[in-house]
């Protein structure tokens, strides 16, 4: 499970320069053997380090983002993706919001 939060400067035409802020949170289990080594094999894993989302609980992530003084319009996107395996991921939710700043 991966949360991506990105802020883009909409006035910037170059897509590579558009991203002003980007963060990624990963929620997963680390399987480990009895020597505390990370393992993938079901027969090797004896304990876990639990970095998952817990049932009956709401996880809150908070970011304070400062942009440059000439940024007028920002698009913030937050998306949550679920990876059934390391390779295949699906976006479960994605929310975009546009912010406008009065620079005068």
């Amino acid at each position: 499970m991966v949360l991506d939060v990105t802020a883009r400067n909409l006035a910037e035409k170059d897509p590579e320069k558009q991203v002003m802020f980007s963060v990624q949170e990963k929620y997963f289990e680390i399987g480990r053997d009895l020597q505390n080594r990370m393992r993938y094999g079901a027969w090797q894993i004896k304990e876990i380090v639990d970095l998952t989302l817990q049932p009956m609980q709401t996880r809150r992530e908070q970011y304070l983002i400062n942009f440059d003084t000439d940024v007028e319009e920002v698009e913030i996107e937050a998306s949550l993706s679920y990876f059934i395996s390391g390779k295949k991921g699906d976006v479960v939710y994605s929310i975009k919001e546009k912010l406008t700043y009065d620079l005068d």
Partner: protein
Amino acid sequence: MKQIQRLMPLLLGTLLAFLPASLSAMEKQADTIDELLEMFDESSCMECHEEIHDAWSKSWHAQAVVSSLGGMHNFIVIGLAKEWETPLTKAQIMKCLDCHAPVVKYASEDLAVKIGEMIVTAFKEKGKPAGDSAKKELARLNVGCLSCHNIKATEVARGFNGPAEKGMIYGPKGEDAEDAHETLEAVDITRSSFCMQCHGIYKSADGETIQCNTLSGSYQDTYVAMGGSKTCQDCHMKKGHLFPGGHDLDTVKEGLGFEVQINSYQHLPGQIKNVKDPKRWVPSAVVNVFIENKAGHRVPDG
């Protein structure tokens, strides 16, 4: 008393003489996959339960062996052969197949080992004739009708229930199926503990723990402990025997809440470094993301 003592060896001898025969009659073992599937013939189930069969055939239970070839191959080739330096035996491969294909419990030692070798071939020789042929044969093994409605049906409370009766269909209601089969009501099949036989940390007969997933621990120790009362079946049988889970986006969506709150503001001039004009207000935002786990277990699960 002395008479009993004198008779004891005779009694024991008689018992021992009959024991192997009675055991073999009870636990007939198949030497081929055909024979195994004949012993647990599910071909007629769909005649009356077509809709259920259709849903099941699209489920991951229907491909419980062929969808997990990589993991099982690694267990045999890396786990058994390299790390444990242990030969492939029925007892070892049952650490996978007791859940991925419970019917293999009734395979002979030779057949179980052969199935293990086929798993290795199917994975290693993927796309080649030998691999494709092995995979096709292995696709006949799965978590089928009788895996739950007979073989595993009494296992949660084996001491109380005893072993599953041959030919008996265990169901949640025990409804009469006329001449098709005998049915016995088994409340077990409606309970989370039934699914937890496989969907959690598996303890094999020799005590080894196999950690394919950790759902049951999370369900019991967190969800139930926090007051949750839904069963596995409440959520994962909403689409019947399709058993949707992590592979189904609708189910994943249902298990997660997602809310984003954004506060935009202008930060005090002079406080933020590396901006173009330190005398100006700094466009800023506070982004709060709330992710609610509405499932009855940790998300994601290992």
